């Protein structure tokens, strides 16, 4: 979160009643912008701070994946089959002795921090770290797409009303009623290997972002529309209009800055949903192509080995769980901080 600085005028206006801007008297506490207040509240919320720290660490992990695997792991696609039992695919207790049985811990050691992937012997730590790249890339990309489409259409629907609102609102209903998962599976099956100037995994990632983002925008859209409906009746909008401002100016200069907060909060809450969606698609085999690791794909493969190598199920499952939990806690904290009425 950015450090609190001079808040834009409009924010103060929006917060006008609380800040008592019209009174002329400005005690130090009232000088603080909404963001400063929210930041203070957020800092006091230990659970939310915990979530935020995990989120930051996850992003750092994804960005620094090449460095981390060089320091603590192996190349994510490097096979180590001499460590594995050929019959069951599990990690051997003693790599020198093929009859030594399977290590119930999946070959975890100081070399292989999270153990080995069954059959191939690829380093789980490296694959989890690289898997974070795909998960976060798709989740962030899809969220940005959702937010852009949802904000633009939501603000237009809310501001203009009438027939425009009707059309956009019905479109939202249709999108929300769409059997998204089925559509995603079908689409991923028919899109050729190279399309729209993209190839291979770049295309797969693009496709995932498009599918998830394009069909989830109505959630943001509805919130933005609702907020716009109330904001457009406010004095500062009336004032701008009476001064002769055009619709474009009012929409993007007057209304949008006041919508940033709810948009930020809800996109933070959208990210974990999108992570789960990406994992589901990878789990169903319509995600990215092997050997590139993805958490959902690992989880899907692991089901064949759950009896002999349980760590293969647990570790990617835990990675998804922790990521989703962290983003949810962070998002909840953010919402509470900006909208104290919703918290207790």
């Amino acid at each position, binding site marked *: 979160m950015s450090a609190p600085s001079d808040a834009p005028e409009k924010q103060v206006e929006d917060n006008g009643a609380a800040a008592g801007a019209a009174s002329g008297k400005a005690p130090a506490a009232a000088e603080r912008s909404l963001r400063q207040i929210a930041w203070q509240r957020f800092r006091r919320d230990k659970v939310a701070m915990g979530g935020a720290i995990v989120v930051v660490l996850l992003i750092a992990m994804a960005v620094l994946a090449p460095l981390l695997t060089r320091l603590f792991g192996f190349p994510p*696609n490097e*096979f180590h*089959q001499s460590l*594995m*039992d*050929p*019959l*069951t*695919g*599990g990690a051997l207790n003693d790599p020198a002795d093929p009859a030594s049985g*399977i290590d119930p811990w999946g070959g975890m050691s100081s070399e292989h921090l999270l153990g080995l992937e069954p*059959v*191939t012997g690829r380093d789980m730590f490296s694959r989890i770290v690289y898997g974070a790249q795909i998960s976060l890339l798709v989740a962030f990309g899809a969220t940005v797409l959702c937010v852009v489409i949802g904000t633009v259409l939501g603000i237009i629907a809310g501001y203009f009303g009438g027939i425009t609102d009707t059309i956009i609102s019905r479109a939202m209903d249709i999108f929300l009623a769409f059997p998204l998962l089925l559509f995603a599976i079908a689409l991923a*099956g028919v899109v*050729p*290997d190279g399309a729209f100037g993209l190839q*291979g995994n770049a295309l797969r990632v693009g496709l995932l972002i498009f599918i998830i983002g394009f069909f989830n925008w109505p959630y943001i859209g509805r919130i933005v529309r609702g907020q716009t409906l109330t904001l457009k009746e406010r004095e500062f909008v009336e004032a701008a209009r009476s001064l002769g401002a055009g619709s474009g100016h009012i929409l993007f200069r007057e209304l949008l800055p006041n919508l940033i907060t709810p948009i930020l909060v809800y996109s933070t809450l959208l990210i974990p949903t999108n992570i789960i969606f990406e994992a589901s698609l990878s789990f169903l*085999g*319509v995600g990215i*192509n*092997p*050997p590139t690791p993805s958490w959902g794909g690992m989880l*899907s*493969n692991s*089901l*064949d*080995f*759950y*009896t*002999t190598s349980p760590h293969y199920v647990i570790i990617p499952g835990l990675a998804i769980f922790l990521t989703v939990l962290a983003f949810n806690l962070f998002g909840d904290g953010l919402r509470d901080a900006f909208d104290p009425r919703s918290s207790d």
Partner: protein
Amino acid sequence: MSKSTLGLAALGVSSVLLLSACGGGGGSDSGASGSFDQATTEVVNASDEQGGTLRYAISANIESTDLGNTYYGYVWNFSRYYARTLLTYSAEPGKTTETVPDMAAEMPKISDDGTSYTVKLRDGLTYEDGSAITSEDVKYGIARSNYGDDALPNGPRYFKELLADSDDYQGVNADPSDPLAGFGGIETPDDQTLVFHLKEPFADFPYVLVQPQTAPVPADADKGQQYQEHVLSSGPYKFEGDWSPGNGLTLVRNEEWDPDSDPVRPALPDKITVEEGVDQNEIDQRLVNGELDVDLGGTGLGPAKKGEVLTDEAAKANADNPENGSLRYVAVNTVVEPLDNEACRQAVMYAADHDSLQRAWGGAAGGEIPNDVIPPAIEGHDPKLDLYPSEGDKGDVEKAKAKLEECGQEDGFSTNLGVRSDRPTEVAAAEALQASLDRVGIEVDIKQYPSDTFTNTQAGSPDFVHDNDLGLNVYGWIPDWPTGYGFLSYIAHGDNIKKAGNSNVSELDDKEINEMLSDAVKTEDTSEQERLYKEVDRRIMETGAILPIVFEKSVLYRPENLTNVRFSAGYAMYDYMPLGTTNS
């Protein structure tokens, strides 16, 4: 073979009740039920005890109960309970790829020029309603499944391919007054004789007569695709009520069946049930618990249960690990550049790490590492062949690099590898191949496709393969019958390259191979056949068009209550006809 009289059957039931009562008290570790892989080579729990209910389950729905409308080995095996065929596979361990007479009184008489086969039916063959089975009914069954635009869709069309004098015949619905008018390929001089006339000699014809399409269907009982609801039984069991897909099937004894007319079926259980659409993991668990007798699909335990059973000594003793007759391989395309160059394909053959590929397929329990393409159970397999030797089957990187230089690609090249996305084993093999080819600079991109379209419109379409640069495709082949021709003609004969649904994914069109295959199936001389098949086998390996992954093995589980268990190489699963059960 044991006779089925009411008295004996009743006795069987009561003794079974006693047995299961004991079993309930003392646990189920009777111990004498066999050892690991025993049913692959001999009979486990031999018994002629009648009675009880034999419980099958399958993870999908039964493809069809109609003999003329099925292409799945498990239906071919199972349908014999209620439909007798002219010939069938022997149930004698060690000879299970040989054909023996079923409805036929003896093996067919072949004319000197090899183009006509005469089959005499046994005496005393009847349907469940007591009416007699005639040769015309057999002919009708073949007609409805092979000829005309409205022939039943699912089954193979071998009769149409092979029979003479029938090219103008438009099927059983063309002329309602005489459904068989114009079908000259089969003569029925009397009610018990069939004479098949072939276009040209075809030594594998007895295997065609094993197919369920040779089961009798009386013309007035035929209801087209609805016939599957209640097939008129010619075997020891008949449908209880009607069958519809997904609702399960129950078979009860057909009292009109005469055991004296049937040397193939001991018909031990009183009742046979099939549950459809049961999750594979649940089937496996219930088998191990003894709550189910047979997995009808016959493909063996799923991967999760397999690992568990193979690591548990007690459970392992109830498992068999036979080769299921299929070759899993990577089709190396002979048209896509630069693999159109034989030396480039041979580079792939040398570079492949077979140990890694076998591990991906589940290690030694998943299959043997092959050095040729014809599986061991089939004539023509050459155990001495080893054209691409390497230490520890890890691949020979030096030789591969030399071959790359020979084909003008000394820096390696890149190509795509097609694989079915919903088959984890195949994806694992693809990744293993990708890693091993990477060692010599061959860069492989894995492309995933859904399995329901893969064999038809992706790997099965040469145009798609060329357009998408799919130099490699993970593929597999299970022959329709266990001979060299049955195994190789579809995957290696140039004449079988099709626009869609192509099985010759390598697009191998080698004059030598084509000629040898065509010659081999025309001769009745078995030693000449063997020589030709071995030569074809060697030549295919030389072309580098087929990179074998494994001769696949399945892990089949036989619960302790299952009796008379033996593996049939002909059906690549347990032989279902002799099975009995100690359940009440």
